[in-house]
């Protein structure tokens, strides 16, 4: 029974690889292979980035004989990335799955349903944490001096670390579920709690990095401190270089934590999963509603969908929080930042400092690229797509308003961030305008490109909204293309050593982006409309 449940859970995770989400028909062998090749490419690409990080750390630490520290830092990064990758899934995946009622009604012990759900969380945790841990191990095996037992432990730790990540994410999902059931406006509260958690987590990791830096400088002196205060990570580091006792300690503690976590979750699973809500019944007060135009009605519908779903907000709108945080942090640390800029200007004359507007535009693009509101919006229509298809609205208007929501939600913080940052960085008006234009057109590009992917490869058959939002190749592809685009905007300036001013370079990008946006808009109004109407 458990095997069947776990199989079902993983079939949901990888359904899009085997079944055409549009037609519900199985994919041909060739297409399945193609999907996995694409998936593999994305994994290799992401791993390559972490390999570079591992190489940066490993080149000095491994030479100093501090392999354990190398693994401690990268282990921490793996936990961080794994948690970041799967944390948003747990609440929706564990407690809000559409088939919860069906499974609970069957003669299945609730603990097994939970186990199968948690196995899905584990799968994602494994995927994300391995993206960091595996390249770290490869670098160590290639350039360190690993023993056979170290290699064996490194491989085993891939799975143990994922357990630890699952514990963290499941506990957070549980806390969110407990609180969310008792609140009004729970979507925003869930988002807020998660953001606070992430903020704290990043803060701790940021401080941990400082600690690690000083540790490299005074390895012997702080070694004992590490052992005393960060014993768990210390054990991980030592386990990874092949020490048996730390391996046992790290593994036993992780499994003990996992067992406690599972026990706590299983005690409350049915109650939380079946609880409707403890919200007070809203009382209907009859009043004349203001009549809205069709476009506004469609826009408000999209906005309502976005703001009513914490999974959607967190996964596809997290960049907004960063975009708001950047100018605030820049303002708080403006004196320091200006001093660093002045220092860099003296030490690095030439195009690095003159490229500040480009950096600003690139930073905004990077953050805006984290937001993929339009990408899952077609899939999220799910079984209620009939409503839009039966209403007297143009399909192009529907698509435009989906893109419009994406654009609007990002554009307000973009304007705020670019203008405030530009003023703090003492950029001239033209530079600020160019940075703003690049960020704006890039924002529109992601909105339209995401929609193009969403309407071309929709998934209208899902058991939780998490599937089109999170477990979607579309989202990964759009993110990847966004990153490549951002790297191109900033990197080509230095790579090509352009002989003209940064303002001219920015203007060229403005034109390029505008052309791409127009082409995408044309595609959306023609092919996109046809594709949506055929669904």
């Amino acid at each position, binding site marked *: 029974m458990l095997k069947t449940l776990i199989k079902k859970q993983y079939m949901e995770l990888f359904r899009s690889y085997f079944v055409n989400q549009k037609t519900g028909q199985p994919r041909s062998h060739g297409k399945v292979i193609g999907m996995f090749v694409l998936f593999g490419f994305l994994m290799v690409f992401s791993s390559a980035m972490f390999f570079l990080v591992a190489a940066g750390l490993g080149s000095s630490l491994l030479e100093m004989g501090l392999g354990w520290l190398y693994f401690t830092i990268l282990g921490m990064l793996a936990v961080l990335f794994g948690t970041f990758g799967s944390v948003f899934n747990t609440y929706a995946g564990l407690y809000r799955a559409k088939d919860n009622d069906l499974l609970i009604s069957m003669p299945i012990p609730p603990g097994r349903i939970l186990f199968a759900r948690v196995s899905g969380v584990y799968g994602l945790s494994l995927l994300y944490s391995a993206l960091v841990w595996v390249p770290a191990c490869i670098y160590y095996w290639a350039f360190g001096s690993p023993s056979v037992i170290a290699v064996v432990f490194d491989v085993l730790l891939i799975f143990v670390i994922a357990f630890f990540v699952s514990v963290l994410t499941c506990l957070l999902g549980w806390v969110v579920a407990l609180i969310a059931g008792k609140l009004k406006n729970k979507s925003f509260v869930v988002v807020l709690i998660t953001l606070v958690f992430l903020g704290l987590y990043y803060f701790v990791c940021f401080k941990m990095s400082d600690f690690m830096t000083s540790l490299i400088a005074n390895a012997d002196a702080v070694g004992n401190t590490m052992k005393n205060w960060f014993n768990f990570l210390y054990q991980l580091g030592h386990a990874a270089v092949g020490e048996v006792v730390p391996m046992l300690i790290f593994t036993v503690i992780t499994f003990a934590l996992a067992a406690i976590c599972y026990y706590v979750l299983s005690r409350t699973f049915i109650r939380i999963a079946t609880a*409707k*809500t403890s919200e007070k*019944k*809203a*009382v*209907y*007060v*009859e*009043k*004349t*509603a*203001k*009549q*809205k*135009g*069709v476009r*506004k*009605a*469609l826009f*408000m*519908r999209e906005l*309502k*969908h976005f703001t*009513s*779903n914490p999974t959607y907000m967190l996964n596809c709108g997290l960049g907004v929080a960063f975009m708001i945080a950047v100018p605030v942090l820049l303002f708080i640390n403006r004196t320091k930042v200006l001093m660093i800029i002045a220092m860099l200007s003296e030490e690095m004359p030439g195009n690095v400092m003159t490229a500040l507007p480009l950096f600003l535009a690139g930073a905004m693009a990077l953050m805006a690229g984290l937001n993929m509101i339009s990408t899952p919006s077609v899939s999220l229509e*799910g*079984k*209620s797509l*009939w*409503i839009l*298809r*039966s*209403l*007297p*609205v*143009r399909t192009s208007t529907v698509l435009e308003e989906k893109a419009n929501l994406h654009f609007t939600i990002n554009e307000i913080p973009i304007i705020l961030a670019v203008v405030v940052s530009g003023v703090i960085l003492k950029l001239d008006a033209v530079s600020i305008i160019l940075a703003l234009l690049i960020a704006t057109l890039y924002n529109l590009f992601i909105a339209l490109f995401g929609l193009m992917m969403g309407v071309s490869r929709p998934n209208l058959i899902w058991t939780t909204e998490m599937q089109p939002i999170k477990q979607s190749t579309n989202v990964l592809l759009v993110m990847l293309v966004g990153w490549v685009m951002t790297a191109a905007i900033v990197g080509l300036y230095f790579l090509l050593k352009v002989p003209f001013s940064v303002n001219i370079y920015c203007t060229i990008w403005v034109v390029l982006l505008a052309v791409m946006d127009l082409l995408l808009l044309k595609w959306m109004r023609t092919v996109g409309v046809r594709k949506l*109407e*055929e669904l």
Partner: protein
Amino acid sequence: MLKIEHLTKIYSETKAVDDLSIHIQPGEIYGFIGHNGAGKTTTLKSVAGILQFNEGEIYIDGKSIKKEPLACKKITAYIPDNPDLYEFMTGIQFLNFVADVFEVPAEVRQARIHEYAEKLELTEHLAQSISSYSHGMKQKLALISGWIHEPKLVIMDEPFVGLDPKAAFTMKEMMRELCDRGSAIFFSTHVLEVAEKLCDKVAIIKSGQLIRSGTMEEVRGDESLESVFLELED
């Protein structure tokens, strides 16, 4: 009001609807009967402009659904068998959304929402999230949203499924009243007794083909609709 001419819809290699023609006049309640998978829902969805069809034409109030889909949809309401509504909205938000799209003036919509919600005993639930609604409540809400723009043609797929007897009675009253004002209703049903009592005309479809249609008297003759239906099915 509705003219379906030689409608053919093919899924992969299967003909779901095969050369189907039906004409419905204003004021008529037209029942559509057939076994599971006979092609009823495909036909209704094609009329509602949700599905594209391979051959034939559909005219609503003289306008082609292919050539003027928006004009057709503007005067039509579609209520599916399993109303998957926007669970992220409350009942009243959904009704206002639909009313906005149909450009129903504020005062008019308020009066209609008041009237129909009272009739269907849904008023006190309108501020609740649709996600908390039962199937029957969703069906009632879909019904109100369909009636909110006073459509000339209503297409309903198994409208009585999930409704309690009182709501079913109210719905039949609403259907008759709407048709008395000149609209037409085309609906599918498995409940032959309802079809017999409510419909002015019926059509029986089997494997995508129309096998009998006309007034109730023409179709059933001296027998009951059930016996005619069962005979034709054999």
